[in-house]
């Protein structure tokens, strides 16, 4: 990749220095909220009560983290976020897996086996991306009641799959559109079937877009609060609901350091995914999902 026009003049060097300065300044701005969170989470509460929000901690302590993880109250249970963390995982893993799989097959069928009305089907599915979740809260509650899935992990998985399919279908469709049809046609002539072609030809090249879809769905579902609070039972509340219970008290004493530590803990999985897989995320987008 040699799209940079480099001339070794003093002016160009100055420009380059300016470029770095700009990028680093922007990075600092983007980091600011995270820095404040981390700093606050390792300060004793007295320091925060004294009003020093943006200063460095004068006494470093990890107690807020320990408390947030294992002993802070999220209701009458005072054993921190640890249990809710597991609930979130139980919801996120199946929901991400199912919605990604369904999206992949949809995308494949809608691009490589076009049929009359397939574009209309895609358009109809796409609309699901735009439905504000507050709107579906009540009808969904009734539906889950009918299905006998109210207040259960399965119910939450269903909800997340239902509203995730629109996005995953969009991702995979836009990716598979860019995969050349010749290979598929050749395979069809050889008598390869629908699933065989998917399995042998499409899936092996789908790595990047699977990454995109998984990251997207993982982030959305892990961070979901509204569905979690409305449709979970007492024993299946996700970590965001517990975090809200910890942070959001109307008539109680606030412990900001514990709140921030809890917020960091709740955010860690998605942060780690972005830091570790961010590269593949960008690569996956490069590979096709933006061509649409």
């Amino acid at each position, binding site marked *: 990749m040699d799209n940079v026009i480099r001339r070794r003049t003093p002016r160009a060097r100055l420009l380059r220095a300016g470029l770095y300065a700009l990028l680093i300044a922007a990075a600092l701005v983007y980091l600011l909220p995270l820095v404040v969170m981390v700093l606050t989470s390792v300060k004793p509460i007295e320091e925060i009560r004294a009003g020093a929000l943006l200063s460095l901690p004068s006494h470093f302590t990890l107690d807020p983290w320990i408390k947030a993880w294992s002993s802070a109250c999220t209701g009458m249970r005072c054993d921190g976020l640890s249990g809710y963390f597991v609930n979130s995982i139980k919801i996120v893993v199946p929901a991400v897996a199912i919605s990604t799989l369904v999206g992949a097959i949809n995308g494949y069928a809608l691009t490589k086996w076009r049929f009359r009305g397939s574009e209309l089907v895609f358009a109809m599915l796409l609309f699901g991306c735009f439905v504000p979740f507050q709107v579906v809260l009540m009808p969904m509650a009734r539906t889950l009641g009918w299905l006998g899935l109210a207040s259960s992990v399965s119910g939450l998985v269903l909800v997340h799959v239902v509203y995730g399919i629109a996005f995953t279908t969009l991702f995979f469709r836009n990716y598979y559109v860019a995969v050349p049809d010749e290979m598929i046609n050749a395979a069809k002539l050889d008598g390869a079937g629908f699933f065989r072609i998917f399995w042998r030809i499409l899936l092996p090249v789908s790595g990047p877009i699977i990454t995109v879809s998984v990251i997207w769905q993982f982030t959305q579902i892990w961070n979901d609060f509204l569905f979690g609070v409305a449709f979970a039972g007492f024993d299946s509340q996700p970590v965001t609901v517990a975090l809200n*219970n910890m942070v*959001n008290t109307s008539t*109680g004493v606030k412990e900001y350091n514990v709140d921030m530590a809890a917020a960091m803990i709740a955010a860690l999985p998605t942060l780690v995914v972005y830091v570790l897989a961010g590269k593949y995320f960008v690569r996956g987008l490069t590979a096709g999902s933006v061509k649409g």
Partner: protein
Amino acid sequence: MKPLYTLAAGAALAAAVTQANAAEIEVLHWWTSGGEAKAANLLKQKLEAKGHTWKDFAVAGGGGDSAMTVLKSRAISGNPPAVAQIKGPLIQEWGEMGFLGNIDKVAREENWDSFLPPELSAYDKVDGHYAAVPVNIHRINWLWANPEVLEKSGIDSLPKTWDEFFADAKKIRDAGFVPLAHGGQPWQDATVFEVVLMGVGGADFYRKAFVDLDPEALTSDTMVKALKTFKKLRGAMDPDIAGRDWNIATSMVISGKAAMQIMGDWAKGEFTAAGMTPSEDYLCEAAPMTEHMFSYNVDSFAMFKVDDKGKQQAQMDLAGLILSKDFQTTFNKAKGSIPVRMDVPLDDFDACAKSSREAFDAAQAQGGLVPSLAHGMAVSASVQGAVFDVITNFFNDPDMPAEKAAERLASAVRAAG
């Protein structure tokens, strides 16, 4: 393995026999913060000592707003919890829709009517039958103050009228402090306004305007005067109130940045957490002109209809425990409120709680007992929301005249009702 298996089965059988009337009940509530959650945890332990299981379903946020969303979602899905924290007129609404059960049995056995103030127990009855149990009484019309700041500003007693208040505010401002700490959230704006309205209009006017929603009262001169006084308070606050949480405002009083705050008695928790003692390090008195009045906010637990006999028993047991004298004492001490049972002595409560009980008795005798609109005790949620909209918009709009706000109040209430 066989012996172990039979042993386990035997144990299970034994448990089933001894707990013939024991059950699991799910309890929806919004007590999630340190002190109140710990105190309420006692309740859980006591319920479990009776053999029942407490399944905790906590949802914090918006003074119960989020919990109500969840309750609706659960009710619509046909799966409401057995017990839910609901308050004020909402209990009636749920009852009228046929969702609530009947706990008259325990109420009769323990003779609730003998020690619950009738003004408050009325909220917990649907068609004359107890469907819910009250827990505590918060007083809203408190003025909290930092005596050190007052002293530095040359003030020796808290203001008794709004004129005195504004005179004092000037002195405090001149001494370099913020006279009134406040957080600009709709419920806090409404809290301050209703306290002003009580003082300016008196209890009868308050009831006419904020309970009966009489359009004449809502547009009356008294209302306009209260609105003007309220707006004038803006000058006694700092410019950065918007969106501030109430406890940050309280911490301004604690740290000596601000002199006073108008807030319900849960504010005590913040002072206590900062290691301060009432009457010494901080003062609690009735807000100006509301000395013999008491605007209350009462938390209740409503019992939803359940078919299972064991669950019904668990609901009754829970209700009984909530009104037991020792739970009333421990819980209310932690929460900052006073016991809802009038026969619980307040000997080991702090000075503010004692004065709260005195004010309650006086207000009850003189007709000064009023429900708090800001805390969902006076009107339906839709009217409350409409009032919040007008009040908070008026308070934040420097150009809106009080007369116009009063008219808007009346029309918004009409549209919402």
